[in-house]
């Protein structure tokens, strides 16, 4: 029974979707957050965080492997029975929708500050809903195509990031591990939020055409994210004084502010517009995962309607509820904590459960 046969995606598209779900807000705030805990050794924490993410990803693939045509929404009722499965599915749906909401609102707040500080919030939401719905109403295949083309199409952003290297101060990185390992481990917690997104693999797995490559795909997807984060963080660390980097909210952007070409100045504005193309992937993927879950839960084919309803709710919400920066940050933190649960811990628990389940069933059969 192949439920999702018409929608299969290639390995590269799978990689890009995993990577695209990850490369979000972390790109902007990560350097400051890392420096806050671990100083210039933050890059080590990042690599540790990546290792954790890869391990969790591998667990997810192991979990999905057994029933290759199931998404997590099909899997949970299979193991836990209908009512309990439905409740668990609801938890996942809420988690994905919360992920969508927080990344969406936080990014809009960010674009608002950078571009249109006086424009009312709901107008900004309106502006971003347009492309979001335009993407999310399609199926996985189109989403993956988008993830793929934007990766190739916006590689130039990372080339632009090379420009500030001419003012790099390599001495900033030394000494390595200046205050020992403890701050490094402390900072790992903050990297978790930046690597969140690989849990989209829970939904994507049945769509992948060659499932035997799933392990490779999810690792490469994480690796791409690591490379980009690492590059950006190193550039920020090299550019800013270690004593000052923590005073910036978004060091990644500040780095670009000094770029001026003869034909165009203030490159960071252009890069930010390009960044909108990248970050939209994060929340559309989450929204898709959520809306898709609702449609599965209700046994409907089409997820479009639920995505539209969610967006409408967000729009209405945005006219009344205007989170402050601090509110947003604490919400991002909560999401990070949830992420530990849903993306890191839950797959492991589920995997253990399925093993036990299998043994138990075997026993009962005998």
């Amino acid at each position, binding site marked *: 029974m192949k439920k999702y046969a018409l929608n299969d995606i290639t390995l590269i598209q799978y990689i890009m979707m995993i990577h695209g779900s990850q490369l979000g807000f972390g790109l902007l705030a990560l350097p400051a957050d890392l420096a806050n805990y671990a100083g210039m050794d933050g890059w080590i924490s990042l690599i540790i965080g990546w290792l954790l993410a890869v391990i969790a990803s591998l667990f997810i693939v192991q979990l999905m492997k057994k029933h290759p045509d199931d998404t997590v929404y099909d899997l949970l009722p299979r193991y836990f029975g209908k009512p309990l499965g439905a409740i668990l599915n609801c938890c996942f749906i809420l988690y994905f929708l919360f992920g969508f909401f927080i990344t969406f609102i936080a990014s809009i707040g960010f674009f608002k500050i950078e571009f249109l500080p006086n*424009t009312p919030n709901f107008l900004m939401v309106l502006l971003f809903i347009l492309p979001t*719905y335009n993407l999310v109403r399609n199926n996985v295949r189109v989403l993956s195509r988008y993830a793929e083309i934007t990766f190739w199409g916006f590689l130039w952003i990372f080339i632009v990031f090379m420009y500030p290297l001419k003012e790099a101060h390599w001495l900033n990185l030394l000494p390595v591990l200046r205050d020992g390992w403890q701050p490094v481990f402390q900072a790992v917690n903050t990297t978790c939020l930046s690597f969140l997104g690989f849990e989209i693999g829970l939904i994507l797995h049945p769509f992948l055409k060659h499932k035997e490559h799933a392990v490779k795909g999810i690792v490469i997807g994480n690796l791409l994210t690591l490379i980009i984060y690492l590059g950006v963080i190193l550039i920020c660390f090299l550019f800013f004084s270690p004593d*000052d980097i923590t005073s910036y909210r978004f060091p990644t952007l500040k780095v670009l502010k000094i770029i001026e070409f003869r034909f165009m100045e203030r490159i960071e504005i252009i890069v930010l517009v390009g960044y909108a193309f990248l970050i939209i992937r994060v929340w559309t993927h989450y929204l898709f995962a959520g809306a898709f879950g609702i449609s599965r839960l209700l046994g409907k084919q089409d997820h479009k309607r639920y995505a539209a309803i969610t967006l409408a709710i967000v729009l209405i919400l945005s006219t009344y509820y205007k989170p402050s920066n601090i509110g947003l940050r604490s919400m991002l933190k909560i999401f990070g904590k949830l992420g530990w649960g849903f993306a890191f811990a839950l797959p492991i628990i589920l995997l253990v459960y399925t093993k036990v389940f299998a043994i138990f069933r075997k026993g009962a059969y005998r």
Partner: protein
Amino acid sequence: MTRFYRIALAVLALLLLPGCYDQMNLEDASISLMIGLDMDADNNLVISSQSPVFYKEAREKTESITVKSNSIRASRNKFDSILTGITTGGKLQTVLIGKRLLEQQNWFSLLDLYYRVPKLTETPRIVVVDGEVKDIFEFKPADKPRLSLHIRKLIDTAHMTNNTVVTHLQEFRRQMKDKGMTASLTYLKKEQNDVVVTGTALLNKRGKLMEHFSIMESTMFLVMQRQNPRGASLILNLDEPQEDQAVPDDQRGIRNEISFDIVNFKKKVKTAYSNGKFRFDVGLKMSVIITSIQSDNKEFAKQSQIQFQEKIQANLERQFDSIVERCQKKAIDPFGFGRYARAYQYKAWKPVQDEWGQTFANADVRMHIKVNIKNYGVTDLYSPLDGQ
């Protein structure tokens, strides 16, 4: 399908309804290109701004304005009440800072606005003015482009020829906040009919003007500070080592002078810490091309390359030592030795990081210079037939 397009249409219609909150037409803006901060005689903060005028009817193409105010943001309101357009700082080119302002405590926080508001730019050059900032704003040169453009260009080209540093706002903040170094800014002076770059102003950690380098010293400073000072050209006076560098050019007459361009450059700093004292061994290895040898002394020209190189080395070492010493005396570290201390002697650095200036004053800095003459140009040093 239909529904989506209907909703999209409705959304578009909704978009049309509200006004445009952040719109600012270019011609309505008064684009501040140069801003000046100074203290007047009564110790009031004086802020000046210069912006281009677009209107055809206007005779002057630039408008300058000076107001008394407590902050840059407050001054903008005053500008707006006088100028035709709405003042914006998105294209700021230069920030001029009066010498008197540098005496003030905590003046650096005046610039906070530029780091906080994303719309503002962070590339304007920061310049210390020897004299009153007002003089420059009132200056209307006939043979130069718009003054604000001229000054920016002047600084950039002076930097290209290694006559002074270029410090933009972002770099300035780094220099001010990094505990391992102190700031260095372009030093400018208004003379009779010209605005002249006079070298480099050196600030201490609190932003106070402590010392300044002449143009020649600035070149040496840049050679020392930057990793790759390609094309820097130095002029050395080779026969009278005891002579002071600050002698004005016109009193020197024709001397035995040698000038050369640096084509290749390597800097190595060794950091050591012993007995509560930092020691920096700075190794500078440079390959140079001789561009002129100005001498009527045949013996001088006949020297072998090794002698020649040694002479240049000794001379350079002396000069580098003198600029380092001057900084140490004033307890400032524009070279950024503190960053080496942090990188290589972190344990020793950590307790002294907050008073690095004093620590640096006691540090032992030794210059080891190695000059390698790559070529002498297309004329020989001396004719073999000559004086035989």
